[in-house]
C-alpha cells in the first residue's frame, strides 16, 4: 500500500499533468487507506492546482492547460468531498461571479473562478450571459462579500456599471466589493464606473480579492 505522502503526490501530480483518471484512482486509494479527505484536498489536489497556477504565472502553462488541470482537480474533489466533515460555508468568504448579459465568452471567467476557489473562496458561478439583476439578487441572497464580472465585448461592458448602480440602489454597495476583468476592461474603466478593482488575469484576480477583502 502507498504511503500518505505518495498518494498526496499522486493527487498533486495528477492535477499538474491533467490526468483525470490518475487523480480518480489516487483519490479512491487514498480514501480506502483511511487518510483524511481534508488533507487529500489541500495537500494533494489544491497543491497540484497551486503548482499549475505557478506554471501559469511563469507562462509555462496557458489558459487551456489550467482548465484541464482544474478538470482533474474537480474529479478528485467529487470523490474526496463527501468524506469531509461538515463545515459551514458561512466561515468562508463568498463571491458571486459571472459573464455579464449579452456575452457568452466564459473561458477567462472560469479560470478566475477556479483560481479563487483554489485560494479558498466560496464562489457562486452564475455562468455566462447573466441578467444584470441576477448578480445583485444573488449577492443579496447569499450574503456575498464580493462580485466578479467579466466581458470580452465593448458592447456589453456597460452592464458592469449597471450592476454597480443596482448594488447601490439595494444598499449593498458598501458591503460588497466589485471586481471586473475581460478583454476591453482596464483599471481606467474600473475607476470610471466605480468598481473596487480590475485584474488582468486569474492570478492577479486572486491577489486583488485577497487585498480587497483583507485576506492574508
Amino acid at each position, binding site marked *: 500500500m502507498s504511503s500518505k505522502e505518495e498518494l498526496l503526490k499522486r493527487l498533486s501530480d495528477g492535477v499538474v499533468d491533467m490526468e483525470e483518471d490518475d487523480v480518480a484512482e489516487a483519490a479512491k486509494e487514498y480514501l480506502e487507506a483511511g487518510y483524511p479527505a481534508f488533507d487529500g484536498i489541500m495537500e494533494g489536489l489544491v497543491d497540484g492546482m497551486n503548482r499549475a497556477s505557478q506554471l501559469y504565472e511563469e507562462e509555462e502553462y496557458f489558459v*487551456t492547460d489550467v482548465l*484541464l488541470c482544474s478538470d482533474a482537480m474537480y474529479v478528485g474533489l467529487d470523490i474526496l468531498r463527501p468524506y469531509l466533515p461538515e463545515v459551514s460555508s458561512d466561515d468562508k468568504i463568498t463571491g458571486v461571479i459571472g459573464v455579464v448579459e449579452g456575452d457568452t465568452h466564459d473561458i477567462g471567467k472560469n479560470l478566475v473562478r477556479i483560481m479563487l476557489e483554489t485560494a479558498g473562496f466560496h464562489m457562486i458561478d452564475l455562468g455566462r450571459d447573466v441578467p444584470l439583476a441576477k448578480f445583485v439578487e444573488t449577492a443579496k441572497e447569499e450574503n456575498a462579500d464580493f462580485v466578479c464580472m467579466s466581458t470580452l465585448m465593448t*458592447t456589453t461592458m456597460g452592464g458592469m456599471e449597471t450592476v454597480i448602480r443596482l448594488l447601490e440602489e439595494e444598499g449593498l454597495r458598501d458591503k460588497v466589493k466589485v471586481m471586473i476583468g475581460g478583454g476591453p476592461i482596464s483599471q481606467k474603466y474600473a475607476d470610471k464606473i466605480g468598481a473596487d478593482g480590475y485584474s488582468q488575469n486569474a492570478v492577479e484576480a486572486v491577489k486583488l480579492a485577497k487585498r480587497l477583502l483583507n485576506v492574508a
Partner: protein
Amino acid sequence: MAEIKDFQCTYDNSAGINSEVTEGLGLTFPDAYLHWDTMAALSKALKSHDGAAFCELPFCHTVEAEAMGGIINYGNELAGPRAKEYICTSPEELLALPAIDFSAGRIHEVLLACRALKEEGEHVVLQVSGPFTILNVLIDAKYVFKAMRKKPELMKEVFEKLGGEILRFMEEAKKYGADLISYADSSGGLNILGPKMAEQVVEDFTCGFLAKAEALADDNTMILLCPKTTFAMLGTRKAHFRDLKLSGPMTYGEGCIEMIGKVRLAGQMCIKNVGYQLENAVFKEVVLE
C-alpha cells in the same frame, strides 16, 4: 520553435449596433437580425455611422454554428445574437452534426442581404468565423481543449469538417457578390491557446485551410485575415508579407477595395478598425509559403 505574436484587439473601431445607428430605421429587434432586407438596411446604416468604405455582414458570429444546429439567443438592440446552451459534449457529436444548408435559415438571409447590398453598388465584407468561434457556440471549450490533448486525431477530423463548411460558405458568399471575405477566429487566439497549441493549430488546420481559401480569391474577391491569424502564420514561418504600393494614403478598408483582383490574401490590420490609415500607402499582401 515558432514565435507567434498576438494581435491585441483594439476598440478604436466600429462599436457595432447601437441606438444611434438604428434610430429612424423603424427596425424592431431581434427581428431585424433575421431577415435579409433588415440586415441590409442595418449594414448600410452601420457603414454610414462608422464612415466605413464598405458594408459588413453579418452582425454576429453565430450564423455558421446555427446552421449546423446550434441554439441561438437572438438578443435585442443592445446585445446581438449569441449562443444559448451548448448542444455537444464530444468530438464524436460534433462530427455527427449536419452539413450547412445555404438555401435556408438565417445563413441564407445573410447571403441574400449580401446580394442586395452588392446590387446597390456597395462593397461587402462578409465575415466568416473560424473553427474555434463556431465551436464556441456548439460545445463548452473545455471539451475542445481536452479532446485536442486526448483525442487529437478525432479533433483533426472536426477541424477538417468545420474547415470544409467554412470554405463552402466562402464559395457561396462569392456567388452572392461579397468582394471581401474576412476570416477571423479570435476564440482560437494565442492568448487563449498558448504558443504550443497555437502552433499545433496552424500546422494541423490553418495552413491547409488558408491554401484552399486563397484559391477562392479572384478578380472580384479578396480574402482578408484577422491579424491574429496573420501573425500566427507569420510567426510559424508559413507566410510572409509582400509590400505593394497603393495609389496614395488611404484607410485600410479603401486599400483592400483598391487591391481586389491584385492581392489574394491580406491581413495587416483588423477590418473592423475602420479608421486605420495606411499613411505610407503600403499595402501588405499575405503570401503563403
